[in-house]
């Protein structure tokens, strides 16, 4: 079953908020963001690579593609390795590009909801 058939709101998110700075299409008309979601990174790292309980933040990854790829291909921790049989080099480059294209988050200092959060 196609991914979008199962989870239409994911597709809606894809088309509604794609970054203007995203790299060019990776393959078959997909945007890099499409690839990011198709290969499942969002599941643990969030749709914006923001991280969560099961995966750290990866947005704006500081690693170059070689280091990024080496980790993704060979990791043996909680994150399973994504080999070339699962994610092609072309797709992985698209994912890396997408993550690097994500804009800087706002500063906590500029968000009213994050002022006076903690007790003295």
């Amino acid at each position: 079953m196609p991914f979008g058939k199962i989870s239409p709101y994911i597709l809606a998110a894809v088309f509604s908020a794609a970054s203007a700075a995203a790299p060019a299409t990776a393959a078959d008309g997909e945007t890099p963001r499409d690839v990011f979601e198709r290969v499942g990174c969002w599941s643990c790292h969030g749709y914006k690579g923001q991280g969560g309980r099961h995966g750290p933040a990866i947005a704006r990854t500081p690693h170059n593609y070689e280091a990024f790829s080496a980790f993704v291909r060979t990791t043996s921790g909680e994150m399973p390795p994504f080999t070339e049989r699962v994610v092609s080099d072309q797709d992985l480059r698209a994912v890396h590009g997408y993550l690097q294209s994500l804009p800087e988050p706002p500063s906590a200092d500029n968000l009213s909801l994050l002022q006076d959060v903690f007790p003295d």
Partner: protein
Amino acid sequence: MIEKKEANAGGSSTVDRRKFIKGVAVAGASAVAAGEGAKAAVLPQRDRSQPRPSALRPSAQIVAAESGSVREAGADGSPGTVPGKPGSDFMVDVVKTLGIEYAITNPASSCRGIHESLVSYGGNVMPELLTATHEETATAMGHGYFKVTGKPLISLCHGTVGLQHAAMAVYNAWCDRVPVIMMVGNNTDAATRVPGTPTLHTVQDPGSIVRDYTKWDDQPGSLQHYAESMVRAYKIAMTPPFEPVLISIQEHMQEHEIHSEKPLTIPKLTTPSFPAGDMNAVREAAALLANAEFPVIVVDRAARSQQGMQNVVAIAESVNALVVDRQGRMNMPNMHHLYQMGGGALRRADVVLGLELTDYWGTVNDFSDNAAQNVSSIVSPDTRLISIGVGDIYVRANYQDFQRYQPVDIAIAADAETTLPSLIEAVKAAILSERQAAIEQRGADARRNQAALRERTLAEAAANGWDVRPISSARLSAELWAQIKNEDWALVSRDQSLSFWPHRLWAFENHHQFIGGPGGQGIGYGLPAAVGAALGHREHGRLVVNLQNDGDFMYAPGSLWSAAHHNIPLLNIIYNNRAYHQEVMHMQRMASWRQRGVENALIGTAIADPNINFATVAQGMGVEGIGPIEDPNDLSAAIRRGIEVVKSGEPVVIDVIAQPR
């Protein structure tokens, strides 16, 4: 504060249990008193000039009835009536002595006798009968209710099909060390049992269905036996380790006139003192803590009261030990400088004190859920391990809730909350003056680290997809906190699906503000347990928040109807990631290990196509539904409206379309 609704405030009783018992107890056994307003201390006995009832005769109407269980009553009164006091009235007398506030039922014909006695003879007070749409819901409501009130309630259901429905909720309660009194209807006497459905709903041994995860059960053979077993069951359930118990009540005992050669008596309830640690072992543990270079305390279900929580703080502050919270209960204020959410501190520990840990092995070992299943110890081989908990007192074999075996250096088989006061005193006595400087330095280090952690937390919250759609867990948590922090609030769910953002941003200060999770991790606990917990909070007028996972919601959505029907105020925030997301990740893990690609991971795990509109579901059960909320900028108004509804004394649902975690 929320305005109380007088008609449903609950908890009010005209029966003072202690006075009641004192008034009728004689040398450990009391002559029985009838229910509300009763004057006689001894039950009226059957008129022995009349013949005993003959064999029961099913009528044509009875046979035709759908239940097939309607039965003509005794022959020694007016035809078709029970002339004297029915047995289930006495059963209610017994329940009333125990001070149980609520019985929750999904109505069952095998319980019709006591059902009628509860609502008529018993005046539907102490206990008040509440309606659930599923036996699992009723039992999980009792689970949540106990963790707020410290009081058990009765889950009343069929001993067969009802108990089978309730079984998973019983298991959750068992794993979470929560007493729920399962009262189940049955009729083992084939000679008096109507054929058809009632026989299908009969079992020789109903307790066997849940015996692996109940602490005690009985199927009394007489009303006197019932009285003794009911009091015994309550006593067993309410002695650490608190656990579910089960009493099977026979239909013929419920429905027929009382026939007892001797006056029925209700035994006096004496709750035993709770098991405290052996003082030699306590002093040995204290010496280790007092002399440790880097002691760490790990807590799971360590505190069941405000005082218990304060004692956790006291033992931690006595040596400035970091406290790693496994969040089985509200163990410690999370803004305390010694509080730790993660277990990283264990890597530095030379002494670890575990308080009521269900999984000590999993606390001090790291098990990677990867293809190699790597295992490594988190603590050093020289780390001294101390355990205080009831897990060493009582354990069963079949279900594996006792986890892997962890050797420790000092194992104190005792209730941690009961033992902590003596441990605190022993530690204070064991601290040598030359250790004070090191202890104070640990405290200063912890304060400095906490300040840095708070800075990082705020930065991560801002970076955690602050404006994205679906809505991020950090944004949702911050929006909620802004509107509840000045209220008397309580969270009645866990927050792991929100990546623990509430525990990172909200200030949990009082014991009633958090109750831990389901225990057995059985899905379907969340919504009914939250409703039960909200029932416990209701008389205090608290703003009760339930962060409700979408998948869990669909197991027992009827819980919402119970909340509406019984006017239980509760702010339900549906964390709607449109999937059984834990399973999505498992599918991805499997596919990656096998190098098959992850594109199929949503098959069988997504809850979409069609998307569930939880606001509409709520509205269909008489609950105001808000949403779906997809834009984070719409959250504030939705939450504000939700709080208004809750403050009016009603439940509400806000459907929030959210990030996976």
